């Protein structure tokens, strides 16, 4: 993978002391602060990003009564039986199923579209570009509302009622554009001469695609799939419109928030966070291991 000049070698742009000049302690502190301003701010911002996650984690141990709002004492109870509250694990399973199906379909359709957009010239390209861009610039609430109007009318006539199917249809739709732009960026970064070389060596177009192009764009496809899954898994606004009586995990939490979210939901929310971090860190480690192994 092509990388740029490692920026670690860059001296900080603000450092500009000449050796003859001996700054006072106050001045040196000021310089140190100026040099480390960005990194100190970054650490503060990261702490800010994690603050609610930490709260969620802490309150997963709360020995709460009716509502999980005031700290009442420590317990392992909720971690021992995260499914102890009715509905919470059912909604999690629904979310995971929706996420997996939507991710697979959106990734396949989006990758095909991205290939067409980068590798071909055709009539209607500008229109296709617009069709891909506009869903990303449309607020979720508008998409949810629009989907609801067709789902309650046209779709119920052909036997599709609000529920699991309509959630999946909607999720594929809003993930699709994000998959296209992610994969497209990856394809654009490839040197087309690599494929030409394959063809010069008498590879058929199919062979060229599966042996050369596909492995090269695979990291982009994997990234797009991860993005699609996380968008689908965390979606509430569109899901709320098109789900009928079906409950996903975010919807369960939202509905529960009116009377107090059970600590079991905190357990599940925090576990998903840990699992995701482990997966991403694992993938990074794997990638760096593979990069450091010499190629044959």
């Amino acid at each position: 993978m092509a990388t740029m000049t490692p920026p670690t070698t860059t001296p900080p742009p603000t450092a500009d002391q000449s050796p003859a000049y001996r700054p006072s302690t106050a001045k040196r502190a000021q310089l140190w602060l100026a040099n480390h301003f960005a990194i100190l701010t970054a650490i503060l911002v990261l702490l800010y990003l994690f603050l609610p996650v930490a709260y969620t984690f802490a309150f997963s141990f709360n020995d709460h009564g009716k509502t999980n709002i005031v700290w009442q004492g420590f317990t392992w109870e909720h971690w021992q039986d995260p499914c102890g509250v009715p509905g919470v694990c059912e909604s999690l399973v629904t979310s995971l199923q929706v996420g997996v199906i939507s991710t697979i379909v959106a990734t396949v359709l989006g990758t095909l579209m991205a290939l067409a957009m980068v590798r071909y010239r055709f009539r209607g390209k500008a229109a296709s570009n617009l069709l891909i861009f506009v869903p990303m610039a449309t607020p979720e609430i508008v998409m949810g509302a629009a989907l609801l109007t067709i789902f309650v009318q046209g779709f119920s006539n052909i036997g599709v009622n609000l529920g699991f199917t309509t959630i999946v249809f909607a999720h594929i739709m809003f993930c699709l554009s994000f998959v296209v732009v992610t994969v497209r960026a990856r394809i654009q970064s490839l040197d087309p001469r690599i494929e030409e070389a394959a063809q010069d060596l008498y590879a058929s177009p199919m062979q060229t695609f599966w042996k050369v192009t596909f492995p090269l764009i695979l990291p982009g496809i994997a990234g797009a799939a991860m993005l699609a899954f996380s968008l689908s898994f965390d979606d509430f606004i569109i899901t709320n419109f098109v789900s009928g009586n079906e409950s996903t995990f975010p919807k369960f939490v939202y509905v529960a928030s009116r009377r107090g979210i059970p600590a079991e939901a905190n357990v599940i929310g925090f576990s998903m966070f840990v699992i995701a971090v482990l997966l991403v860190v694992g993938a990074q480690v794997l990638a760096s291991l593979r990069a450091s192994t010499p190629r044959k």
Partner: protein
Amino acid sequence: MSALAHVAGDPAVSPAPPAPETKKRGWTAYLLLLPGVLWLGVFFILPLVQLASVSLQSRYPGFPGYYYRDLNFENYVSALTDYAPHFARSFLYAGLATFFAFVVAYPLAYAMAFKAGRWRNLMMICVIAPFFTSFILRTFAWSQILADEGPVATVLNFLHLLPGGNIINTPLAVVAGLTYNFLPFMVLPIYASLERADPRVIEAGGDLYANGFTTFRTITLPMSMPGVLAGTLLTFIPAAGDFVNMELLGPQQGKMVGNVINDQFLAVPGGYPVAAALSFTLMAAILVMVFLYVRRFGTEELV
């Protein structure tokens, strides 16, 4: 929106090499596009057309989803007059949240691109990871952190920095929630464009006797503009349509337009036409703003 792609793609993808014009022509492109375009046609365009037609029908006081079949522009009049304050609040709060997110996100993105060294992948994970704790859970967590007896309000009250005495259930809490929830959408595109910038160009600024601030203003910031542009759009658009932050953190009175649309659709009988008109107005307003904004600041990198 190529900067957007870096949200999930690996950030080290170099810019495209100068591709010779060898693009293929033919029907294959249409075959590749067909399934995706059909999907967007049926589940994006068609619903919008239906929404448009609903927005022109009269209120039907009965089972949701049924309307009088007529043509009526009153819903739009109502959307633009009765609900003008809601639109104003939505755009104001979303605008403020976008501004604060920019202020908070830029140093983080800058540090990730130029100062983090081997920690940058870890920082990247830290930016994305909170996403996986459901955003509703995190917003609920904020409602407790900002609550009257919570740590933030207590400290600010002790220092007499809080004129109203509380944060929760005020517009301030809503803006704080919006800023928090969409922050990663601001960080990642800015990081992506800074990461692609050549650090030697920034060094050159220092070599030419520009001080830190001048270098930043005349070199670094302009180089990151594509990312800033994508980031502000990715923050402003969802923030303007959001209703969850207002519902969980905001006051009872003075809601945003997203709350009205949500309530009219899901709670008010016969509310569909007005809600549809509100949705359409919101979408049109955002598209116009996006268009003007991209024309004013845009680069070819967008779209």
